[in-house]
């Protein structure tokens, strides 16, 4: 393993560029439209899981309501593009900002709360968003949803084919990774990680925990909104049941399986979960059983996930620490 890592660190730029090039050629090599659709789904959920990982994996808060922010992005895109004909590329940041604002609204009351209180509030907020989307008929179309969301412009390519829509997801995914990578290496990212590892210690070192926690929430919500905005034209039709808490738990399962606290983890998780659920389609409900068993196994064997941050609090009690020994406590007694 360390050899692989050493190789990666030595040829990092070349390797990443090679992966990027391979991903660019992928829709032309894989000709079957269904598989390209799966690839689109993987990219979509990798970015969504990444946005959740920015919250759960980096600042150690337990957000269970990512489906809500995702829904905000999707609905903002659908409403603005069908009603007012706003350009998709303009809507990407707009829906991100909308979601981030809702994220702030959720984060503000939870600043005083921690852990499990935060989870229940985020879960409740996600349910409230879904129910409002389901019932506010004049704006969101109610249970009928919103149909015929216009496909985005992409250099004149007909993006209603997954083959070309793929590039939009790829663009957003790469953008997300680049930005998040920079953010994590900055003061802000270090503050998030310090909060995750030990909030009291972080506070004592002068990190304004409530400020950085709400910033973290807004950041995760922003990207969930952006992904939601890209999702709405892709499926062309959205309705409230697509954003139920099960979707949220699905995304959570991805980062649990793939790994929290690393950029690779959510991508791996999205690949595993999507491939698993699509390839085991013939098993019907049994595939969800398998899926649930994998989550439990993961918690038992490797709580930080396959590619998770092993040297962190996420890894549970598995980190080897030097035992504390008091000098001379026994030898002279």
């Amino acid at each position: 393993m360390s050899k692989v890592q050493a190789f990666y660190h030595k040829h990092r730029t070349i390797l990443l560029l090679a992966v990027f090039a391979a991903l660019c050629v992928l829709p032309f090599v894989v000709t079957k439209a269904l598989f390209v659709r799966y690839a689109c789904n993987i990219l979509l959920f990798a970015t969504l899981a990444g946005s959740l990982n920015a919250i759960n994996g980096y600042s150690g808060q337990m957000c269970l309501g990512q489906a809500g922010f995702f829904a905000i992005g999707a609905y903002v895109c659908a409403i603005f593009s069908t009603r007012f004909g706003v350009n998709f590329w303009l809507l990407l940041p707009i829906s991100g900002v909308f979601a981030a604002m809702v994220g702030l609204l959720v984060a503000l009351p939870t600043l005083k709360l921690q852990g499990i209180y935060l989870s229940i509030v985020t879960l409740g907020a996600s349910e409230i968003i879904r129910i409002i989307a389901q019932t506010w008929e004049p704006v969101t179309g109610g249970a009928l949803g919103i149909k015929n969301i216009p496909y985005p412009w992409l250099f004149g390519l007909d993006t209603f084919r997954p083959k070309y829509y793929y590039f939009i997801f790829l663009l957003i995914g790469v953008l997300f990774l680049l930005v998040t990578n920079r953010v994590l290496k900055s003061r802000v990212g270090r503050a998030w990680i310090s909060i995750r590892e030990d909030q009291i210690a972080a506070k004592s070192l002068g990190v304004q925990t409530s400020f950085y926690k709400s910033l973290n929430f807004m950041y995760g919500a922003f990207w969930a909104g952006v992904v939601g905005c890209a999702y709405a034209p892709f499926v062309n039709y959205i309705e409230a049941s697509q954003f139920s808490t099960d979707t949220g738990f699905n995304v959570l399962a991805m980062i649990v399986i793939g790994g929290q606290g690393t950029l690779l983890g959510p991508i791996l998780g999205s690949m595993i979960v999507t491939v698993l659920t699509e390839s085991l389609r013939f098993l019907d409900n049994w595939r969800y059983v398998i899926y649930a068993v994998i989550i439990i196994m993961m918690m038992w064997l490797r709580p930080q996930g396959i590619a998770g941050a092993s040297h962190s609090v996420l890894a549970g009690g598995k980190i080897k620490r030097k035992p504390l020994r008091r000098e001379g406590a026994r030898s002279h007694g």
Partner: protein
Amino acid sequence: MEYLLNQLVNGICQGSIYALMAIGYSVIVGVVGMVTFTYGEIMMIGAFGAFYSFQFFGNNLALAIVMAFASSFLLGIVVYKVCYERFFNAPRHIALLCTIGFSMLMKNLVQIVFGPEQKPMINIINNATYTLRLGSVAVDFKLLQIVVMLLVILFAVSLTLFFNRTRWGVALRAVSQNKQAAYMMGINVKRTAMLGNCIGCGFGGIAGILLSIYYYTVSSTIWGNFSMKAFSASVLGGLVDLRLSALGGLCMGIIENLGITISSATFRDVFSFAFLIVILVIRPQGFAAKKGSRV
């Protein structure tokens, strides 16, 4: 006015079921020290236990309640072994995610074994309605509502007696207060925690049968929301206090039913969650007197 009062009665009845759910939930959180997301599935198993008891052993409510309690109690052992036992010293989110996984597992296994369709629960209590006249205002009580409320009070009182008057109850309270100290007093902490989890689950099962009688249906999918209600009610009561959790559940039931009188029935969950968020903003510790939560 009359309509409002009737809704209040509905609210109190539904709230008392929520209160029972919240009591069970608080027992689990208090004794084990970790939260659970499998509670909805535990309630579902209780309801299914009662459903099959009605099918095979005739229309006997007492027997059905015992069956519901027993099936949820047994499932509680599995939940404890899978989700909690290994993770007492690990960070809390690990057990939490484990319970989410277990909840997915149960939901889909039940759909495979018992079928995905909604099953009608038999109408065990007849539809008699009693009207109470207060001057010009008439308030309707259904017999079902009266029975449900009486059962909830009965179980709540018996649980309180169990906690205060028996050796097991005292051991459970000791573990809930301080595991280390309980261990030093010679209490088998792991076994007691398992018992606490199972008792909480059993009460969830009883709440499950009451809910399914109240809504006349049993299915594998409708329970997720109710588990969140139990969770919210328990959070309102500060997570570990049984009486305050019961109060939280009662308040949620009343708020929901009064809320849907001024809007539409689809907003039911919005009212309960909004109420929870508002209370948490004003008092982060819920109804509890001081910040005593360790979860």
